[in-house]
């Protein structure tokens, strides 16, 4: 029945035998996916550590943090953080988290591991590009971390690196010379890595599908990775030349971003005539799609995790896909809403405000599909489904504040305050992290062949869920009270009453951060000593659960490419294996979705 010669693409590279080819410069998409996950894992611990240092400083400004001078003798004399060092840590926290965690884990890590399996292929079509994609990204991370140890430390310009400050060199402050060059090199490399990755993701989805796997039969996670890779292809292709221009302003004396007659620290800058807004346009043309690059894979993962736990498909498979596609298209038309206070023409603000409000429509449709599908579904409660619910909660909470910020008249008041910090942490950062956790608890049995500890997973969820709200909800309140963001200390009289709120947030951040150790323990302990996982522990239907073993063999399907007979989510159906029918099962059933 399952025809082994069903597909044109057969083994195009043999299993490696040497250690280096197997684990380091591997061509196997599964190993590369794990490498990306490992990179994101190290990056998130580092980024979280930086946020702890920042939070401690914001709560107790003159606090001496033991050992801090070891990290930076100039940035923390007597172990007390200087204002500049605070900004350097803030910049590194943002850059590491946005690029090397929120893009790397849900898109590059899970996508690499599961996209080829979910389409029924034995690998991506260009494995060498795939390997390069990881190692170029890794080199980017090394360049970024190196900036802590070279010259006067990392750049302090924020993860957005607004010019002209980022383009004037060391006169702009610590890290604005070598630090910016390293930052731009790092992000330029990251762009190349993700472009190579996107190339593989798109061709895998379009050309590597197995027999019977039409595009509509792809699971929602595969759709999300595909849509994200299209966004990544266009967005990273714009940020990369912008980084090159920024580097040239530093090392070659060009004047792309620095205007005439700019005086910094009493020094007239030698550059002339550059455009101050050019960088912002190039950056945000990338930057807004980047927000969706971080969140859309989470949407796909959460949908994919919820469905087997609800034992029913989403209310509308296709509407969800169309909505994710609409988010991707609209994400390019809204980037100007990051620039309402940049001195841009007010007419442009109105023009950008309109699609910004429109983009809430597909986002709301997605949320309503989730809620409508969950309603009355008798959800199976486990760590993965809890984190998926947490994702929806965070996305709604963070999304609601987006309505306020989408309007230029309100944004002008709120833009420079903690309201924005609360908004984007909720809707993009924490939500995406919950997506990563949901994906980890769900796919860990397939990736490592072991079950994770459910009790620890649930404790981890509740501590993280409550903790995240304790940290980020007060940010909105602080913002409404006029608490300015990016400041290292709040000395103005009107902000004094807000200091206790900051102290509360710091304590919450320390506890929530520490509770992640439960996850780290669970991950490592389960990897080595967890209970062996069955091939299909969640009784799910998509192709990753039809592999002959966990983890799947080198060629994913043990020499036989699967043949697909059904839509991806056939639950609530009486099949030979229970209330569900696998995509590969040749049983005849009445289709349970809007496929026809």
């Amino acid at each position, binding site marked *: *029945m399952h*025809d082994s010669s*069903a*597909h*044109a*693409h057969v083994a195009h590279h043999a299993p490696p035998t040497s250690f280096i080819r197997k684990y380091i410069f591997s061509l196997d998409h599964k190993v590369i996916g794990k490498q990306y996950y490992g990179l994101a894992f190290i990056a998130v611990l580092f980024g979280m550590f930086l946020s702890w240092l920042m939070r401690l400083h914001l709560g107790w400004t003159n606090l001496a943090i033991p050992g801090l001078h070891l990290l930076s003798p100039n940035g923390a004399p007597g172990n007390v953080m200087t204002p500049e060092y605070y900004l350097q840590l803030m910049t590194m926290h943002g850059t590491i988290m946005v690029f090397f965690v929120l893009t790397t884990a849900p898109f590059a890590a899970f996508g690499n591991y599961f996209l080829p399996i979910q389409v029924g292929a034995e690998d991506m*079509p260009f494995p060498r590009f795939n390997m390069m994609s990881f190692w170029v990204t890794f080199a980017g991370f090394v360049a970024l971390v190196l900036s802590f140890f070279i010259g006067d430390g990392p750049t302090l310009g924020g993860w957005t690196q607004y010019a002209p400050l980022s383009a004037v060199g060391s006169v702009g402050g610590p890290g604005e010379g070598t630090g910016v060059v390293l930052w731009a090199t790092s992000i330029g490399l990251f762009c190349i890595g993700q*472009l190579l990755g*996107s*190339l593989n993701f*798109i*061709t*895998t989805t*379009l*050309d590597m*599908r*197995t*027999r*019977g*796997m*039409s*595009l*509509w*039969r792809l699971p929602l996670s595969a759709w999300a990775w595909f849509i994200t890779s299209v966004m990544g*292809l*266009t967005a*990273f*292709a*714009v940020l990369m*030349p*912008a980084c*090159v*221009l920024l580097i*040239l302003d530093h090392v*070659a*004396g*060009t*004047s*792309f971003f620095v205007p*005439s007659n700019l005086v910094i620290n009493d020094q007239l800058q030698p550059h*002339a*005539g*550059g*455009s101050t*807004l*050019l960088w912002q*346009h*190039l950056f945000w043309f990338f930057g807004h799609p980047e927000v969706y690059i971080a969140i859309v894979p989470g949407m796909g993962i959460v949908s994919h995790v919820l469905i087997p736990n609800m034992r029913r498909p989403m209310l509308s498979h296709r509407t969800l896909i169309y909505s994710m596609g609409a988010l991707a298209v609209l994400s390019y038309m809204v980037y100007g809403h990051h620039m309402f206070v940049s001195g841009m023409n007010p007419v442009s603000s109105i023009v950008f405000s309109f699609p910004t409000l429109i983009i809430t429509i597909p986002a709301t449709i997605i949320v309503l599909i989730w809620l409508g599908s969950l309603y009355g579904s008798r959800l199976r409660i486990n760590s993965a489904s809890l984190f998926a619910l947490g994702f929806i909660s965070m996305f709604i909470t963070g999304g609601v504040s987006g309505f306020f910020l989408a309007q230029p008249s309100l944004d002008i008041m709120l833009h420079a305050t903690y309201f924005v910090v609360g908004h984007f942490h909720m809707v993009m950062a924490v939500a995406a992290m919950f997506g990563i956790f949901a994906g980890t608890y769900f796919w860990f049995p397939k990736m490592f062949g072991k079950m994770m500890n459910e009790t620890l997973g649930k404790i981890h969820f509740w501590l993280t869920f409550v903790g995240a709200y304790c940290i980020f909800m007060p940010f909105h309140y602080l913002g409404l009270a006029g608490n300015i963001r990016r400041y290292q200390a709040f000395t103005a009289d009107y902000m004094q009453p807000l200091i206790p709120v900051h102290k509360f947030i710091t304590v919450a951040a320390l506890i929530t951060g520490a509770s992640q150790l439960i996850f780290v323990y669970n991950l490592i302990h389960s990897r080595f000593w967890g209970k062996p996982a069955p091939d299909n522990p969640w009784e799910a239907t998509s192709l990753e659960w039809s592999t002959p073993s966990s983890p799947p063999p080198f060629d994913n399907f043990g020499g036989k490419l699967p*043949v697909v*007979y059904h839509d991806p989510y056939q639950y609530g*159906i*009486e*099949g030979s294996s229970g209330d569900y029918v696998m995509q590969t099962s*040749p*049983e*005849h*059933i*009445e289709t349970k979705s809007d*496929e*026809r």
Partner: protein
Amino acid sequence: MATTVHEPPKIDERLKGGSGNGGWRPLVPEGGEVRLVQDYAPPPASTGIWVAIAAISMTFAALTSALIVRKGGAPDWRHFTLPSILYLNTLILIASSFTLEIARRRVASFMGGPRTKAESPARWLYVTLGLGLLFVAGQYIAWRQLNAQGLYLATNPSSSFFYVFTAAHALHVLGGLGGLGRVIRKLGARTLKRSTMDATSRYWHFMDVLWIYLLLLLWMKL
């Protein structure tokens, strides 16, 4: 519900020419049990090259918009005449596209027919490779000519953009030359796939079109 077992999937010739593996179609035809599927899926190289072309186009679109924005707000923009060797380089690049097309057709017939009788088409690939190298050398001469006029990378934003655009394009052409080298090597080893040849030539023609666009842009704006 009783379950029945389907017939194994069969190939339906009517679907030839559609996208691989059913594309957007639900694969269960109206009132039929047979899965309408096809063995043919487009080789990833041919999709991949379009994806790469899209990304490269975005990069140059970003640089173009940077040029327009930078020029719009700049009192310091200095116009200069493009080195005339660029026009010769353009002719060389266009010629290389023609020679590559000849090569591609010969490769197709060479690989399709009995290989011993047909003449090896590698010669035309070498001609293309030579013309490509000549183009890059010509671009280098153009840079030297500008240097001789005192126009360096940082002299003026107009010269900055000239160097950035031409260097970015030349890097991509070098990538294409690498691709041509790979095609020649694979042709020699008799392992060349049609899709590799097609993808390489598509990329090369794109370099051609991109250069003509850049030349017009630089001619109008600098």
